[in-house]
């Protein structure tokens, strides 16, 4: 799923997130659970999260410059940020999403 260009009018604090995982490895599973939890706790109602399995869409790895897995990409708001890992360190995820300063 690509970012919908019809969404720019959305409020600036709306978060568009993509989580790239590889199959159903424990790291991938953990990352999905963790990010879902973090989003629900911190961005409830103003985020859009898509989970993409690179095994299904390998071409995206090149298009999105993915090296490490799992990778969470914050498409919006700018600037683009990447968080790698299984998202087990909530604090680091929040820093990566620039949510710490708000808190």
């Amino acid at each position, binding site marked *: 799923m690509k970012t919908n260009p019809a969404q720019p009018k959305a409020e600036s604090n709306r978060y568009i997130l993509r989580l*790239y995982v*590889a199959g159903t*490895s424990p*790291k991938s599973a*953990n*990352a999905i659970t*963790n990010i879902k939890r973090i989003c629900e706790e911190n961005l409830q109602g103003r985020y859009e999260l898509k989970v993409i399995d*690179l*095994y299904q869409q*390998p*071409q995206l*790895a*090149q298009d999105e*410059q*993915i*090296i*490490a*897995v*799992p*990778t969470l990409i914050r498409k919006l708001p700018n*600037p*683009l*940020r*990447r*968080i*790698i*890992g*299984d*998202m*087990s*360190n*909530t604090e*680091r*995820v929040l*820093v*990566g999403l620039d949510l710490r300063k708000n808190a």
Partner: protein
Amino acid sequence: MTKPKPKQKSQSEQKSRTKQKSRPEQKSRPQLPKSPTGIQGLDEITGGGLPKGRPTLVCGGAGCGKTLLAMEFLVRGATEFNEPGVFMAFEETAKDLTQNVASLGFDLKDLIAHKKIVVDFVYIERSEIEESGEYDLEGLFIRLGSAIDSIGAKRVVLDTIETLFSGLPNPAILRAELRRLFRWLKDRGVTAIITGERGDGMLTRQGLEEYVSDCVIVLDHRVSEQTSSRRLRVAKYRGSTHGTNEYPFLIDADGISVLPVTSMGLQHTASSERASTGIPRLDAMLGGKGFFRGSSVLISGTAGTGKSSLAAHFAEAACRRGERVIYFAFEESPSQIMRNMRSIGIDLEVWVTKGLLQIYADRPSSAGLETHLITKHKLINTFKPQVVILDPLNSFVIGGNEIEVKSMLTRLIDFLKTNQITGLFTSLTSSSGVLEQSEVAISSLIDTWLLVRDIEIGGERNRGLYIMKSRGMAHSNQIREFLLTDHGVELRDVYVGVSGVLTGSARLTQEAQEKAALMIRDQEVELRRIELERKRTTLEAQIAVLRAEFAVEEIASVKIIGQEKAEKAQLVQGRVDMGLSRNADVTANKQKRGSK
């Protein structure tokens, strides 16, 4: 993109020659399957290429040509060996890469369009990345895997994978993942090149050599005496023998050329064909026929002894025979050489125009020795001359690099001999030292060595030429006086006498003296002849006088005899008459006389 054909031919010839040599060993030992790089010289060093289906580490400092070597490996694989390849770039974008290698004649865009090569630029920006928990490099694997699958790649380049260490946190994970990556590459059966930057005390910064243990190639770019030279060394090649030396290599318009020092070996066949030197008397000194074709000839001598003139003579003679000649000049420009040679009656320009003679002039300091060597290789490979002239060799000796010069010359001479090219080198010796000294380094490589030297006698410098050695032919041991005339070089016999070798005016004086002595001798002989003549004349005169005297005497005697006879007759007659007058008894008287 493809190299000139002759080059490949010679390469394959050499290869087959090496194979022949080591066939008994190869029979008993199965060779590791190898993937030819197509890079000139590298396949010879590695005995056929990189280990097939295994990763090879190429490491070296910045700007030493790692990326280029890797790229050439891919491009040659795609174009010459029908092995598509994936180039995963961690440092340069695909666009930059395409531009960079376009100057080497690699049309990356075209290859990408024809699905021969995939270039994937991996963008890593540390500031964008935050780490949270454990990760792996499965993304890289997926990317690489899909790229390999998309074109059925057999070759992979990862340039420079160590960038990951600066771009991603947690080196421990990275190390484990890299180990997995190399194993994965092996499992995929792709021949891979992994490049790495040289680190402190290690081949690479992150110690990649620990993981990639099948083959390690070290590149080096060093500057000595302000000239740079690139070198390549196979530090490790598991399961295969390989050349262990540091081999110089060159990056030029055709890509990389590695020059294996020992690849030529001493397997060249020796020709017994002879080539005239262009100077009949010199040919005569060299067993009557001149140099052996494909031999190496050194002309050494002090300044201004006519070394270049001899070289030009040989060049002209070769061109006259319709052969091609390359003249590498290191001290004079082509036009200067042609002008100077015209003054002794050798017109080189004609042959340049006809395309039989090529003159290349550059300063030895313009590039490193290896660069010189490889450029020469390439020129020779392209032009395919029968004769190559280097004038002079010493210009290469800058400072104390004689060993390197020797090594370069060894390789050059081997190369020339392998290709049956006659090499003629000139060498300037200092007049103060021993004439033979400066050539000691290369003398053993030389087949025919002419020495041109000054002979100082009677306030004059004259040139003398003699043959120090000439392998495989009966050659003159004589010193010849060497004259530069307006119609070329002339050799004259020197005067060898009690007072030693005489040349120039001394020789002329000596000759004049000899002439005078001869004249005197001639005169003496003449004198003696005249004397003899005179004596003969005198004697003959005397004989005539005697004869005349005798004749007179004879006449007188005859006269006297006649008179005597007449007198006697008269006397008889008188008595008769008297008797008659006396009326004597004639009868009685007659009877008396009758009875008596």
